[in-house]
């Protein structure tokens, strides 16, 4: 998809807006600029896990093999989701040090993301343990569907049920973004940039998987 190449435009734009255009937030000072990197990373991880779960459902429902390469798609998306969740955790941890005085506080938000990361780490263990076995695709797809079902509880529900220091997420109960106009613009551009980066990376990984599969089918040509 050519549209994903727009990441080359949007990412520098997001960086410039985050540092030059957006104002600092009350009380947070300059640390509020982390918002334009931490929130999009968390958003992309949720998006990637959702895409991997949906692709896994398509793979399980596809009896006639109409979607070749969908197995690689859900695996690649889960890999990107785990990577971005790790980066969101790291950036959140730095922010926690600046705001709460410690890198790790076992806050409900931090605990839930760790559980989510463990769930997806188990997926990679499962998949590598099943290498070369015919049931590998179906079992790993079924696991991803279950993981996708559990994911919203850890991302959206658990931090709201227990008392948390973490501020209300951007997608909050009243479905409104409580930000100044300039900050909102910078955040939206950043969200678009990171989403484009995710789709671009997914496309590259899928193409690479297709090449690897083609090379495995005819290794001596």
């Amino acid at each position, binding site marked *: 998809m050519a*549209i994903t190449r727009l990441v080359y435009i949007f990412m520098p734009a997001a960086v410039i807006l985050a*540092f030059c255009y957006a104002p600092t937030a009350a009380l947070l000072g300059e640390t509020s600029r982390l918002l334009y990197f931490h929130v999009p990373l968390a958003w992309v991880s949720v998006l990637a896990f959702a895409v991997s779960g949906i692709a896994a459902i398509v793979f399980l429902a596809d009896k006639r093999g109409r979607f070749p390469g969908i197995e690689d798609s859900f695996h690649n998306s889960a890999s990107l989701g785990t990577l971005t969740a790790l980066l969101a955790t790291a950036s959140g941890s730095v922010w926690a040090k600046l705001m709460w005085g410690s890198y790790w506080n076992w806050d409900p938000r931090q605990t839930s993301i760790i559980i989510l990361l463990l769930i997806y780490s188990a997926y990679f263990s499962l998949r590598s343990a099943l290498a070369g076995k015919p049931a590998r695709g179906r079992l790993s797809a079924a696991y991803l569907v279950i993981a996708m079902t559990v994911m919203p509880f850890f991302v959206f529900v658990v931090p709201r049920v227990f008392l948390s220091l973490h501020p209300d997420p951007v997608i909050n109960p009243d479905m409104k973004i409580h930000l100044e106009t300039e900050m909102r613009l910078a955040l939206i551009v950043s969200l678009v940039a990171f989403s484009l980066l995710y789709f671009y990376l997914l496309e590259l990984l899928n193409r690479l998987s297709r090449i690897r599969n083609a090379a495995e089918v005819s290794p001596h040509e």
Partner: protein
Amino acid sequence: MNKRLLSAAMALVLALPLARPAPAMDGIAVRPASGANETAAPAITEKDDALSRVMWVVLVVWLGLGAYLFKIDRRIARLERKIDER
């Protein structure tokens, strides 16, 4: 990609550094305290310098990452062409 769309987007990005930075919401980080204008001014300049330095570092990192991705993209396209020719 549509060439018009690309040039419009490029113009937008090039115009961004000219955009006037918005004022702080509460003034904690940017606005000096009343009666302390003379002493606070160098601190503000230092802070702006540091901020722009960080921005340039992030931009250079992205430029390197973007160039690497572009290179990978071209190599994959070349491999795909070879596979199609077979």
